[in-house]
């Protein structure tokens, strides 16, 4: 057995969410941790994964140590196959060319709705957040993976504002609203991998991250979380994954844990 590897919670979220991206697929990645996780996947198990960025980029190879703080800047276009107007790259999702939308989440609820607009009432917000960007379009039109830190204030029963739609109020409500394609696939946190119940469309714990317990997950979740019967355990980050991650983000600009 190898000696126990050291990694922080953000690195764990990055690696385990990146693993969900399969080779040969197309991922639309948001800024921050999703961008890093998608590049990591491309450098490890998913060599022919195609990354799309909101700026209009198809299939770039972003350089290690030069991760941009925005998906709308030129570093995102390094060795890209194509650059498109923003509207057109987003429309590829409506056409159906995108297999995964990959987002970070400020606040996510039991139905996978994401809030990145405001904390408190919309008309008089306690905290106004940056807004949707392409998040709403990604969540409306693609199958979404969310990578986030697991905290009670972030995983809530009902988001204050549905910026990016998940399953809305559960059951058939997403389809009834007119969002007939896409939906939220997984929420990956530093404590677990969460999926959604087939019928109710409610979040459920599918696997624990290494070292995490059900009790710990429950304690850090703002609603009564369903636990899958055959609860799995996620494989710890490997030495190779961590090595590549450190090359990609040497200053840990994207992998410094928040909220700890």
């Amino acid at each position, binding site marked *: 057995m190898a000696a126990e590897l050291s990694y922080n919670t953000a690195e764990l979220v990055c690696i385990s969410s990146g693993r969900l991206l399969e080779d040969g697929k197309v991922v639309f990645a948001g*800024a*921050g941790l999703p961008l890093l996780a998608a590049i990591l996947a491309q450098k490890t198990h998913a060599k022919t994964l195609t990354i799309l960025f*909101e*700026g*209009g*980029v198809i299939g770039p190879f972003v*350089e290690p140590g*030069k991760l941009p*703080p*925005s998906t*709308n*800047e*030129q*570093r995102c*276009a*390094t*060795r890209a196959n194509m*650059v*498109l*107007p*923003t*509207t057109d790259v*987003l*429309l590829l999702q*409506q056409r159906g060319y995108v297999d995964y939308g990959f987002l*970070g989440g400020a606040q996510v609820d039991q139905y996978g709705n994401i809030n990145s*607009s405001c904390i408190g009432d*919309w008309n*008089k*917000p*306690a*905290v*106004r*957040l*940056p*807004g*949707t*960007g*392409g*998040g*709403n*379009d990604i*969540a*409306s*039109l693609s199958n979404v993976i969310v990578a986030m830190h697991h905290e009670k204030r972030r995983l809530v029963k009902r988001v204050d*504002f*549905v*910026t*990016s*739609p998940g399953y*809305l109020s559960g059951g058939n*409500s*997403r389809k009834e*609203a*007119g*969002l*007939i*394609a896409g939906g939220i696939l997984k929420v990956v946190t530093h404590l677990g991998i969460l999926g959604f119940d087939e019928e109710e469309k409610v979040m459920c714990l599918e696997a624990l991250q290494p070292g995490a317990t059900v009790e710990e997950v429950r304690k850090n979740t703002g609603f009564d979380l369903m636990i899958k019967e055959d609860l799995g355990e996620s494989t710890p980050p490997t030495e190779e994954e961590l090595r590549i991650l450190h090359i990609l983000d040497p200053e840990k*600009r*994207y992998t410094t844990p928040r909220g700890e």
Partner: protein
Amino acid sequence: MEHSYLELRAKTAKKDKGLKEKVMSLTEAVTLIPDNVHVAIGGCHYSRTPIALIWEIIRQKKSGLVFSKSITATEGDLLLVAGTTRHIITSWFSPGVTWGVSRIMRHFVQSGEATYEEWSHMSLGLRYRAAAMGVPFLPTRSMLGSDVYKQLTDIKEMQCPFTGDKLALVPALHPDVAIIHVQKADSYGNAQITGFPFMDKDIALAADRVILTTEQIIDNNEIRRTPDRTDIPFFCVDAVVEVPYGCVPHECYAAYEPDFNHMDMYVKLMMERSTEGVQEYLDKYVYAPQTFDDYLSLFKVKDIVRATLNARKGYGS
């Protein structure tokens, strides 16, 4: 800001569409923008932002302007603190994920002093495109069921007359003026954008009036050798201003990266001291310099050289 289709056509018909010289100074170009109109800003986030025009707009103390932009970065802070606008139509507003949430945006929106009208990125793009196409709206499958949709008054839902699918209809957005920075343009306004086109072609066609700044003015013969690379046709354009480094501290694709040291300095000032910090920034960088060259002189040469070299290396590598 409401246009009927025939009014729109009449305005366009009246426009002088001749192949004519439109080169002027930054000061002259900005006098083409009246108060209380809607100005669309080209570029996206901190990329290809027409900073020189925004700098001059603030200096000319324009007021009551409504701005629209795909994603808003630090220029939005400056326009709010300077009092140029109290209404921004955009999809995201902050300097960038690693820099945190704009304290200026929070201050003005949370206090109710300013409106941040939030549309999804794609729906804003479709609104400009509808305007560029001369149709009153475009349908989309995005935004349905979300609170982004619900808080907007200017959006409708319909059932597709062919398939029965539910669709969101987003209305055409016609700016009075578009301000756009490009890498190359000739003196008539034929503009060639390198790298990300963002929404700029649509914005140029959607607007009544277009003001261009360009890194470089090139000869019309050069345009005619590569007409396939022209993104904005001359007859849309009303003013052309040559402004090298016209996006600093933001980036201009293949020309220069952002001045990250300056951006870090600005964000620190803004996050620590909010409106007071940004007021100090405006005094030093916008009001004090007499010309845009004087403004550029406040930046460190080594930072600008590094930003330039990085962009050249990245481009096409």
